[in-house]
């Protein structure tokens, strides 16, 4: 029975439906339904992958191994939460006159399209199709970033599209180089561009060509994944987009780009394994991961805008995930995957809360918001506080465990410097986030500030769902999921 195709078709059809549906409520409900369905399909896929190893459809056009299944689950969860939140969010925006119905329709059409694109990235076997899917997500997300049609949003979208296109162009070059290397080793016929095929012939590919290709792919997809110093579009885009979109961007789309990069990393490692350049791709990941981790806190410390701060925090976490993968031990890769999952559960909550704050205070500047948000939006602040505690890596939330796993893995691999750098970076960003959030969330409203009375918070179901899952999965993971993640880690580690 087909699993992968419905995963792609359901959000696509919902996107097309939303073009026709008149009511905003129905559109929101359709979005929720779409992603709930994909979540269910994802769980079914999990079981299938555990049973069969790899699920293939359409003669290997679509292929899902453990890593893909894991990503499908992440995308579904985050998109589901976003859809849950988006309904009330846009209702308030429309009531405030900030946005028109047409734009709202745009959102509810583009978001499932965005989701479809992301699903295609993880399910496509063909590297070219994967690239096209990444391009698709880029296009849909650019339009989402520019949704509000404000000057800042347009500028952010402009930077996003230019840098994203540059990145994708480089990635295309890299992808083509890989194909060229494959062609070179098979002069007889055109080889398949499927990743599974390339993996099987990895040892025969020319190492130098592959290294070159990987460099291009790394810079290309790295731009999309938000590695420093190619991350410069990230703060603008993630802060100017509407909060539901920011949640999806920070929550999953960065990880999708990383996924694409990882496919190449696995390929390159398999090709260079045993040779003089073994670990080349790992070194690149390590270096840029650490660089991102060190750069992010310095921006967080002097940040003035709430969503930009959250965007830099995403930068930090992506750096940590990269570092975990680069350390290349089963434990650290497993920790990195866990980190991906927990982060995907945490970051959207923070963005949803930021959205609530934005809509209530009409600004994201710390100075304008002022202290005492807790008095105005008590429930939001409690949930945001919990999510912030999770994001800075405090127990009992899962990010604590995953961070510690990666750090201890660094020590186990005799890379004590790496562990020290990670600790320093985490500490610095902790200081920054704590300081900034304390400034606004705690305290009492100053006399001249407005508003001052307590209000009902929106989006509580979405936030509670995510936080509840986070807490649950911090202490217990169902066995099938654990098995899936171990398999995914094995795939990344190069031992499928």
């Amino acid at each position, binding site marked *: 029975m087909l699993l992968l195709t419905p995963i792609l078709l359901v959000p696509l059809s919902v996107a097309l439906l939303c073009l026709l549906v008149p009511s905003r409520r129905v559109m929101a409900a359709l979005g929720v339904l779409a992603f709930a369905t994909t979540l269910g399909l994802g769980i079914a896929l999990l079981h299938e992958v555990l049973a069969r190893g790899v699920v293939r459809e359409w003669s290997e056009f679509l292929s899902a191994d453990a890593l893909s299944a894991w990503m499908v689950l992440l995308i579904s969860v985050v998109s589901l939460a976003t859809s849950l939140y988006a309904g009330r969010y846009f209702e308030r925006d429309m009531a405030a006159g900030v946005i028109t119905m047409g734009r709202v329709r745009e959102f509810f059409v583009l978001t499932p399209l965005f989701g479809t694109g992301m699903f295609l990235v993880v399910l496509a076997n063909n590297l070219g199709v994967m690239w096209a899917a990444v391009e698709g997500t880029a296009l849909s997300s650019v339009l989402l970033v520019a949704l509000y049609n404000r000057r800042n949003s347009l500028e952010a979208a402009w930077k996003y599209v230019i840098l994203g296109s540059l990145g994708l162009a480089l990635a295309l070059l890299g992808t083509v180089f890989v194909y060229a290397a494959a062609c070179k080793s098979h002069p007889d016929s055109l080889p398949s561009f499927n990743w599974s095929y390339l993996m099987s012939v990895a040892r025969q590919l020319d190492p130098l060509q592959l290294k070159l290709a990987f460099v291009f792919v790394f810079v290309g997809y790295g731009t999309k994944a938000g590695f420093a110093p190619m991350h*410069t579009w990230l703060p603008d885009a993630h802060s100017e987009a509407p909060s539901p979109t920011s949640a999806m961007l920070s929550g999953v789309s960065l990880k999708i780009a990383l996924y694409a990069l990882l496919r190449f990393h696995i390929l390159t490692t398999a090709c260079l394994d045993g040779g003089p350049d073994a670990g080349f791709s790992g070194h690149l990941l390590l270096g840029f991961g650490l660089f991102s981790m060190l750069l992010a806190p310095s921006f967080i410390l002097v940040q003035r805008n709430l969503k930009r701060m959250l965007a830099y925090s995403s930068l930090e976490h992506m750096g940590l995930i990269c570092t975990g993968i680069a350390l290349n031990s089963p434990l650290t890769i497993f920790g990195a995957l866990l980190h991906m999952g927990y982060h995907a559960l945490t970051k959207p909550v923070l963005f949803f809360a930021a959205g609530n704050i934005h809509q209530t205070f009409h600004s994201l500047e710390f100075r304008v918001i002022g202290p005492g948000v807790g008095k105005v939006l008590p429930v939001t602040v409690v949930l945001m506080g919990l999510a912030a505690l999770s994001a800075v890596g*405090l127990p009992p939330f899962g990010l604590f465990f995953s961070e510690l796993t990666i750090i201890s893995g660094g020590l186990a691999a005799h890379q004590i410097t790496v562990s020290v750098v990670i600790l320093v970076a985490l500490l610095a960003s*902790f200081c920054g986030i704590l300081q900034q959030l304390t400034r606004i969330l705690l305290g009492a409203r100053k006399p001249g500030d407005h508003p001052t009375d307590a209000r009902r918070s929106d989006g509580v179901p979405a936030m509670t769902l995510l936080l509840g899952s986070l807490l649950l999965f911090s202490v217990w993971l169902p066995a099938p999921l654990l098995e899936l993640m171990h398999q995914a880690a094995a795939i990344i580690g190069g031992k499928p």
Partner: protein
Amino acid sequence: MLLTFALWAYVAGMAGALVLQRAERLANVLGFGLAALGGVCGVVFSVSSLAAGRAVTIAPVTLWSGPIPDVRLVVEADALSCFFVLIVSLVGLAISVFSLGYARTYYGRKNVGVLAAVFNALLLVTTLVFIAGNLWMFLIAWELMALLAYGMVSFEHEDREARQAGVLYFIMSHLDAACILLGFLMLAQAAGDFSFASLRGIGAKLSPQQRDAAFMLFVIGFGIKAGAVPLHIWLPVAHPVAPSNISALMSGVLIKTGIYGLVRVCFEFLGPPPMWWGASLLAAGTVSAVLGVLYALMEHDLKRLLAYHSIENIGIILMGIGAALMFLHTGHAVLASLALIAGLYHTINHAVFKALLFLGAGAVLHATHTRNMEEMGGLAKRMRWTSLFFLVGAVAISALPPLNGFVSEWLTYQSLLQGFGTTTSLVRLMFPLGGAMLALTGALAAACFVKAFGITFLAQPRSDHARNAHEASLPVLIGQGVLTAACVFLGLFPTAFLKLLDPLTQQLTGHQLSQQLTLANGLVLSDATAQGGTVSTLGITLMAVYLLPVPLALWAMFGRKARTRIAPTWDCGQRGLTPQMEYTATGFSKPLRMIFKALFRPRREVQREYDFSPYFATTLRFESHMEEVFQTRFYRPVNLWLLRLSRRLRALQAGSLQAYLIYVFITLVALLLFAS
């Protein structure tokens, strides 16, 4: 099992208080009542375990296994754990009873349910820190402790000072958690396992550089938590702004977790110590003790004064522990046990009397609505019991016989004074120097508490609030009374208490010392050496009691005939004594401020406004500042440098799209060069 019951009592208290948030009184009674119950169970458990003399009370038990391999929560209790569980339970019990009355001051203002819940949670995680059996349990409990304490420091977060104090506290706590984590991971690396059982003696497997690095990390990490100079800057900022029962818990118990960590790591995990380890701890302890009390003397905020005193006492504890490590190096196990006993005895003593003083300060604060001693006064007549309890605490902390502070400082002196003969290297000079500094500290501490008690309680009230102060409620008094009784007991019956420390020293240094320390059927405390220095606090007290009939008899014989006339205090014939004639806290400490000018760098500003002659001023403004050396010389410059660096880096994200594109190209070119 009693300990399990205690832990579940805390959990129940936490849950109950949170659920009943709206019903303040119920939340108060339930939350703090269950905490008190847990405390009682904890005390009984720990005392019975120590008295039984077993080395291991609870064998390693896995509570939970997480999804990540090797991530488990293991608890294990040995003699050291039991001792610290005793501290947290006893102090927690007293503070819980106190809080039953104290929380009433928050009715209608703040969420009492949250206060009770977090209090229970704090007791729970602190106990878990002490009974942690592996790295994960320890770290999780440690971080949760920091988080909950941060929450409590920021309890009155409407006040900007409290918010900033909370942030500083949390940042320092996170820093110390990072140091401890790194140190533990280095040890776990060599052991291949995260459990404490496999970490015992692991230091032998590490290279000397690694051991030294690990030691430094642990000292910095646990030192921050304990509040040793120069890592102490958060302590006088955070402890005053928290609610007083939390301040008592923080000063009494939470900073002792640092001591617990140090003892556990240095004596069990790291193996035989080189000389410089103990010497550095001794030096750090001495500096902390002297600087702590000096800064305490200059304070006129009652709770800040007490917070600085905590730094001083931590210094004394570190001196004992440092001396013990030095004796371990030179091979004098008996002396090492003595020094360790001195340090640990002072730990529990400090927990008890510091908590008592903070509880008293809390009662005073509630009555006078200020922390500033310059606005108090005259409370001895209005708050009789509180002033009595505070007086006992002050006498105890000034190390005056026959109370407990005297006993532990006497033991510390004895161990230091005998250190001179243990080695021939130059390091032995540190011992008498340490002893001299300890004597200086003791004198300064006594002066400081004369000031604290005198200005706060004696003479006349300096403000309307002080004038209208009334005695605290019964639970508040009972809570203080429990700790006072503990002070007296620990002071008068040290020999009985020392028996409880036997399994501890047996485990850590291989010696049981209480037999040698006890003479004359338990009446006299000896220092277990050939010179045979002895002291008997019980004897002193009994002598005072026996001699009491003499003046009584004299009075009965001769004094009754004398007529007694009650007349006002001689005031040089003035219209009457007013509070303006009293000593101020600032004035009292001025001589010492002048003597230690080089440290304090006081700055004094007097501004005078007058109409026609400077001798008839209309307004007079007086400002006195002291430089906080560590903040201005180290922490603030580092902080500013970090922020400056961050601002410079911000230039990278200038907004120019061309620049961003160039970054990408540069990266690409660099990587291509790297790849070829």
